[in-house]
Every structure is written in C-alpha cells, then in structure tokens.
C-alpha cells in the first residue's frame, strides 16, 4: 500500500532534501512509524505521546485530519498525506 507523503522544508533534513517520500500503513500512526524506519527522527517531530503535535497540521488528500480521525485516520492505497507546520505565534 503506497501513500505519498509531502514533506515541509523544515523536515527535509530527515528525507535527504526530498519534497515527497513514499510510505506504508493502514492508519496515520502506522504510516509515521513506517517513515521512522527510513527517516529516523521524523516521527517525533510530528507525533508526541501518541498524538499529533498541536502545531503540526496533517492533511489526508484535502482534509485536515483533525476533522477526520486524527492520528487514527484510515489510509488507502494512493492517498496523499501532506505535513505542514502551523504558521502561528503571538505577542506573549
């Protein structure tokens, strides 16, 4: 089962600079565990304590997975997963 994963600039240090990599898994959690086997260090930048980090956005095709099943969102062959750090900040 091949999933295309689009990698943001800040995480390309784990993918030898590649903008997109392939991965496998029937859920997002499984996909990130699979990526970790080839791109050591990437999982901890996305997942913390079994949950998606608050300021990392993950999309399944066009949908923010927070509106689906978050890290337990089911994946199918041919899906595209996009990872984008939130653009956020504030004065305090």
């Amino acid at each position: 089962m091949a999933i295309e994963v689009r990698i943001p600039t800040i995480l390309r240090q784990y993918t030898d600079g590649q903008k997109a990599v392939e991965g496998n898994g029937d859920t997002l959690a499984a996909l990130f565990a699979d990526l970790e086997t080839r791109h050591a260090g990437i999982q901890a930048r996305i997942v913390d304590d079994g949950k998606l980090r608050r300021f990392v956005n993950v999309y399944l095709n066009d949908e923010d997975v927070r509106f689906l099943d978050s890290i337990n969102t089911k994946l199918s062959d041919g899906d595209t997963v996009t990872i984008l750090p939130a653009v956020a900040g504030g004065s305090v």
Partner: protein
Amino acid sequence: MLTLTQALHDRIVAHAREDHPDEACGVVAGPVGTGRPERFIPMLNAARSPTFYEFDSGDLLKLYREMDDRDEEPVIIYHSHTATEAYPSRTDISYANEPGAHYVLVSTADADGAGPFQFRSYRIVDGEVTEEEVRVVEAY
C-alpha cells in the same frame, strides 16, 4: 537584509491597521531562490485574537499548494503585535518553522499614541533571533 518595495511595505502596514486590535498575519511569496518578495497574500487570523495568530489550516494547505505550483516560497511571513513592541515573542520563536523566511513584525501599539510605528524584520533559525536591516525601495 530584507529589501522590499514601498508598495508591499504599505500593504503590510495597512493590513495590520485594518485588523487592529486583533493580530494580522500573512505572507509575501517570491520565486524560489531569489529572496525577492513579490506576491502579497494576506491571511485570515483563525485565532482572531489580540495576542495570538494562526493561519487557518485549510487556507494554509491551499497557500502552500499554490506556492508549490508557481515555484514560489514564503519570502516574508508577517504578523502584527497590537500592544507590544515589534520583537519576536517566545511563542513566535517556538513556532517559527521557515528558516529561510524573513519574519516581519509590525506593531500597531502606536494607535494609542504610544510611539512611532514599528516595522522590523528578523531571521529565526533554530530558536535564535537575528534582527536585520529593512530597505524599502521604489522597485526591484
């Protein structure tokens, strides 16, 4: 050093004033590798807050796809502080994820006559803030 046109400078300032007392935010995109800010893209502050900003997650995906299709990158990421000086806060630093971008901060705190309008630019890399000179030009 950040070099931008007077027109882009004025649009950032106008956006910040318009959204005051909430924080305003947005991007100026430019062709990959040139460092030249060209396309002004005001973003919605999904937090609608005077002390916090966050791009709406759907808008963020659309923005990055569009930049990707056009071979652009975020040259400037700007936001306003509405009651404090135009210097990156701890929150700004911990969420700064574009080491190649100029982080522009403007302060609209002068709206109450507290001081001159501030327009400042920084690099934020691995948690380290470096202020840089801002050069405003008529055209590139």
